[in-house]
């Protein structure tokens, strides 16, 4: 429901409303979604199931009664549905509660004209180090995320969850802002005169070389590897949460409780290469270090160097838009190194001099501009 529609109907976020049309009615809570059309309310299908096991049974409301079978096709839109507010309120479980970027330059966007002219962002000032950086003798893993390609589908989040045995903590814990996703897609709305712009930014551990989390860990549970990875050693962690506080990207996740793995059958779905974390330890994205190690072992057993693209992270593998590129930054010919040297490449919160392994390619937005007389749709890069 759009903000305007909600104020017109006199409902607030989380308020349960009754949608009814010709004898069918369901009660569902309101989620206010900027950018939604004012005259239209969207309801997710596929909830309110009765035989879906302990995870999905009885969750939400079934919206299928509104679907009509007309002229040989299912009509997923229903007209003249009335909305009645009820006095019940539900706290929605959302992983992001603040929707505005507060004007901070987190997601770089360029107009087509800017992109064509080649002046994207100011070249960052030369960063000064007080000490000599450590060198990485063999590899230096890096990732580049193309914000132009990202459609915000969350496939990376899910594949990460599956690959890394990340616990699913449930609605209550998400309401307490304790979701465990190692990867997330930040989404910001921009209210503009002609509507709402939405921006996505996949965010995961940036594997900073000058990592602020590492310095503060008293027990050396998080240190830097010789391949530029920010390692998290679960079995050494005592859980001070200082690293999470000191992470500017807030990508570290803490095991607040012992999330059980008691179901022997369900445990067969766990990835045997990734440790299942216990209660009270910190965890975070490792750039799928189990895949990196496996790739290195394969290559070495065969006595050959690692090929570019041979090691793929789970998020990269599942991205339908190929927005994520992963590889060795020591190899100037790798695709990730090449992308790093394109103009659109930028470093998030560069002023902190964290030297991340994860950088972004800025988004080029074509708001109906014309370049060289020809109208262009979408962006080509």
């Amino acid at each position, binding site marked *: 429901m759009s903000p305007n529609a909600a104020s017109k109907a006199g409902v607030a976020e989380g308020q349960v409303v009754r949608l009814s049309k010709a004898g069918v009615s369901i009660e569902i809570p309101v989620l206010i979604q900027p950018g939604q059309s004012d005259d239209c309310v969207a309801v997710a299908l596929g909830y309110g199931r009765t035989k879906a096991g302990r995870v999905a049974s009885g969750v939400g409301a079934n919206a299928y009664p509104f679907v009509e079978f007309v002229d040989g096709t299912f009509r997923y839109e229903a007209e003249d549905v009335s909305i009645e507010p009820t006095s019940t309120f539900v706290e929605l479980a959302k992983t992001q509660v603040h929707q505005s970027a507060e004007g901070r330059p987190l997601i770089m966007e360029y107009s087509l004209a800017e992109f064509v002219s080649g002046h994207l962002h100011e070249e960052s000032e030369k960063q000064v180090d007080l000490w000599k950086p450590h060198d990485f*003798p*063999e590899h230096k893993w890096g990732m580049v995320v193309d914000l132009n390609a990202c459609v915000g589908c969350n496939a990376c989040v899910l594949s990460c969850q599956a690959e890394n045995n990340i616990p699913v903590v449930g609605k209550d814990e998400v309401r307490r802002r304790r979701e465990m996703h190692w990867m997330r897609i930040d989404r910001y709305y921009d209210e503009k005169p002609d509507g709402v712009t939405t921006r996505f930014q996949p965010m995961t551990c940036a594997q900073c070389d000058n990592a602020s989390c590492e310095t503060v860990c008293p027990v050396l549970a998080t240190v830097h590897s010789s391949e530029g990875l920010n390692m998290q050693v*679960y079995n050494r962690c005592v859980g001070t949460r200082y690293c999470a506080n000191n992470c500017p990207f807030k990508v570290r996740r803490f095991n607040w409780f012992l999330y059980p793995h008691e179901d022997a059958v369900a445990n067969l779905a766990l990835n045997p290469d990734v*440790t299942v974390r216990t209660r009270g330890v910190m965890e975070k994205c*490792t750039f799928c270090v189990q895949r990196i190690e496996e790739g290195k*072992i394969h290559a070495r*057993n065969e*006595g050959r160097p690692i090929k570019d693209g041979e090691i793929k992270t789970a998020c990269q593998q599942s991205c339908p838009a190929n927005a994520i590129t992963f590889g060795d930054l020591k190899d100037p010919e790798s695709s990730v190194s090449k992308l790093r040297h394109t103009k659109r490449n930028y470093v998030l919160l560069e002023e902190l001099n964290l030297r991340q392994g994860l950088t972004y390619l800025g988004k080029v937005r074509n708001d109906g501009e014309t370049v060289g007389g020809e109208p262009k749709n979408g962006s080509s890069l």
Partner: protein
Amino acid sequence: MSLTTLKILMILITIIGAFLVWQSRTFRIYGDQLGYEPIQPINFSHKLHAGDNQISCLFCHSSADKSKVAGVPPASTCMNCHSQVLPDSPEIQKITAAIAENRPIEWVKVNDLPDLVAFNHSRHVTSGISCQTCHGPVETMERLSQQNAFTMGDCVSCHRTHREVTLDEAGKPQIAREQTAQKLMASTDCSVCHH
């Protein structure tokens, strides 16, 4: 008086301290399984097979150079030979029975690492680390026992000393010898084992 008592006390402390230091070489921490020697369902002798008969480790533990795990041989591997050799011995009869009932033999795992450690056999075997480096003189054991405490310190000290492994022209690894081919480093990064 008090000074004498103090002297006696200090001497006692010194003796106890010296004893502790002396004992520390054999000091065992909780969870240390060194010397674990369980009774196996079949009285299998590594001494006989690997020692006296010179059967290569990889003959039975065939995935040790290809996979993370060395692999416990299936009953059928035993029968490769034992269908001909001593088929009537009572111990072999147990294997025959297991095959007949289509159930695995329930060997007791001797050398075990906690789940928080990822150890890859193939990488170590391929780089020319002998099995005995970690498993001890298996070829002399009637019944298998754990010969290494498998503390992190053991792994780390080996990774520190065997920094360089080179391959000779045949692709066979030679530890710490100047050869051509590719340099392989044993890393001490945490993420090599803990992920």
